[in-house]
């Protein structure tokens, strides 16, 4: 009898399982996943809206979080550090679940970010770091990026490879994290290469007109200048104009978020090479980190995660149709 009973049981089980498969099984993590986002708020404080990087991050975060029912708010201080500090202060009392902050420099928001974490708000920093580390940092490894740029300049300009060895740097604002950390990386490399001469190291306030005037004077004084590296492609359209007017062959290595304007610039010869930290990728990293925080619910400030963005060195030759991204309406 036993084998028969087993067979009947087996058949019954098989029939049951078949019925279940026909109706579909509910994913056991689904409910908890969607519940984790109900009624959550994410506030975003960039240095200013209105340029490719900050608009791109906002777009990516909105696309990833809003369909889950997360409220996404933007506070735009429009390049005013005081207004930004006020926005964060008022957010601390409004208590959103997450603040995503883009620091204008390494110092200004440091104490506020600590206070926000103490008030039970997760703090995510993007691209420009504060001296105070918070739950998540997403952005380029600027020291490493500086090293890579330094090495690239050595490769292009070293007298061994037929260059003059003379290079110039155009920074943005001297106190911005992007400038401070990158200079460390570049200086480390230049210290190992005495054959490379840094003839000019100036700041242009992220402004194309200032960058142009600086580049024009530097090229004028050093007609055999080999390369200029600038810290932002939007500013370096000015550097490029100065190079074009001088009629000299100067290698322009710039950097940015990989917006379509960078690829256009490579295509029409404005830039020689662009170091790209992919903005949609950074937005996805931030969104994923936020999703993880909402599901794991750690104490704010208890875990510090750093997610460095992969860098891409784009030139006209290795650029592909999908290498850059664009904003809607661009």
């Amino acid at each position: 009898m036993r084998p028969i009973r087993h067979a009947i049981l087996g058949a019954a089980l098989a029939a049951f399982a078949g019925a279940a498969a026909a109706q579909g099984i509910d994913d056991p993590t689904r409910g908890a996943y969607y519940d984790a986002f109900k009624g959550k708020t994410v506030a975003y404080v960039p240095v200013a809206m209105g340029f490719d990087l900050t608009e791109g991050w906002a777009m990516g975060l909105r696309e990833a979080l809003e369909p889950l029912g997360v409220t996404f708010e933007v506070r735009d201080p429009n390049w005013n550090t005081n207004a930004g500090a006020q926005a964060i202060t008022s957010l601390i009392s409004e208590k959103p679940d997450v603040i995503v902050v883009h620091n204008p420099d390494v110092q200004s928001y440091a104490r506020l970010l600590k206070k926000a974490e103490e008030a039970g708000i997760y703090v995510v920093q993007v691209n420009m770091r504060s001296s105070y580390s918070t739950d998540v940092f997403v952005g380029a490894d600027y020291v490493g990026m500086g090293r890579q740029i330094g090495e690239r300049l050595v490769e292009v300009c070293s007298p061994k490879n037929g260059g003059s060895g003379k290079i110039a740097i155009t920074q943005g604002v001297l106190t911005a994290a992007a400038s401070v950390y990158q200079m460390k990386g570049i200086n480390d490399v230049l210290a190992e290469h005495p054959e490379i001469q840094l003839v000019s190291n100036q700041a242009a306030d992220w402004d194309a007109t200032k960058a142009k005037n600086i580049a024009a004077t530097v090229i004028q004084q050093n007609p055999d200048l080999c390369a200029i590296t600038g810290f932002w492609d939007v500013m370096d359209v000015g550097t490029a104009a100065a190079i074009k007017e001088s009629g000299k062959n100067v290698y322009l290595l710039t950097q940015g978020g990989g917006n379509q304007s960078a690829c256009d610039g490579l295509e029409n010869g404005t830039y020689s090479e662009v170091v790209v930290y992919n903005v949609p990728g950074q937005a996805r990293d931030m969104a994923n980190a936020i999703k993880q925080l909402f599901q794991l619910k750690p104490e704010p400030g208890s875990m510090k995660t750093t997610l460095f963005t992969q860098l891409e060195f784009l030139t006209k030759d290795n650029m592909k149709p999908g290498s850059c991204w664009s904003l809607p309406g661009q």
Partner: protein
Amino acid sequence: MRVFGRLSQEQIVFGLAVLLTIGFALTLPGFLTANNLLNLVRSVSILGILGVAMGLVVIGRGIDLSLVALMAISVAWALQLAAGGYPLWLALALGLGFSLAVGMINGWLIAYVEIPAIFATLAMGAAIYGFGRYFMFSLDVLYMSDNARPLEALGQGSLFGVPAPIYLFAAVCLVTYLFLRYTAQGRYLRAVGDNLQTARITGAPVRPIIVLQYMISSLIGFVAGLVTAASVASMNTRVANSTMVYDVILVVVLGGIGLSGGRGGVRNVVVGTLLIGVLLNGMTIMDIQYTVQNVIKGVILLAAIVIDTLLNPRDEQTAQQGDI
């Protein structure tokens, strides 16, 4: 002191510029070459053009703090329209029309509503920037589209080896000089700036002249904006929030156009612009750090003003009216 007693501020500043030039020429190799000098003037020609606009308003005893914001927004809007498929001439005409309209509103607020110029234009600058960023375009740097490329010649072209912005600076100076010297409106403008009541009694159309002066300033501002956009193939509207407008006022005051109105001319602006140009160029060649550059610039400007105060003490009129 008596020997120098007759020197005007303009001459003092010119003297300083010459001294600096000689100093740099002796110590910096490559400073005193034709190319570098052309580059020097080119780099300050936008500042100079804006200085002429501001100088004109200041001679009329006013001030235009909305100058830079208006320049940035109206030119950016024109670029945006051109990128959106408008023919270039129409885009430029609309941009210029917007600029003139705002200039007219400025003038009307100051002449007819009688709001002090400093407040009317300060508020207007903020309002235009906000209006532009909210209603006209969403990005703060606008690139020049392909159908606007013909404009590039204004900023990047050159004729007989001299860059185009220098020609435009010279042209703006010349036209403004002729306007102030030979037209009735130009003379009225100076009269209004010197003493508004007297000008009114003598029959000058005081209020229309004030409106006119702000419209001219927005017109010249638009030209400066075109040169800016053309020379870097983009317009950065953030300059509206920068300290650029104070640099422009500095050029005007440094050159010796008194803020009490009625004094000075185009030559003063040129001299002020040259001093700033020589300073910036020399410091860039020496690769002095940006923040240190600001300190040196500030100290030299203060020195010029102190020397002027010592050599030309305040007379009763300026003491009564105040500088602004």
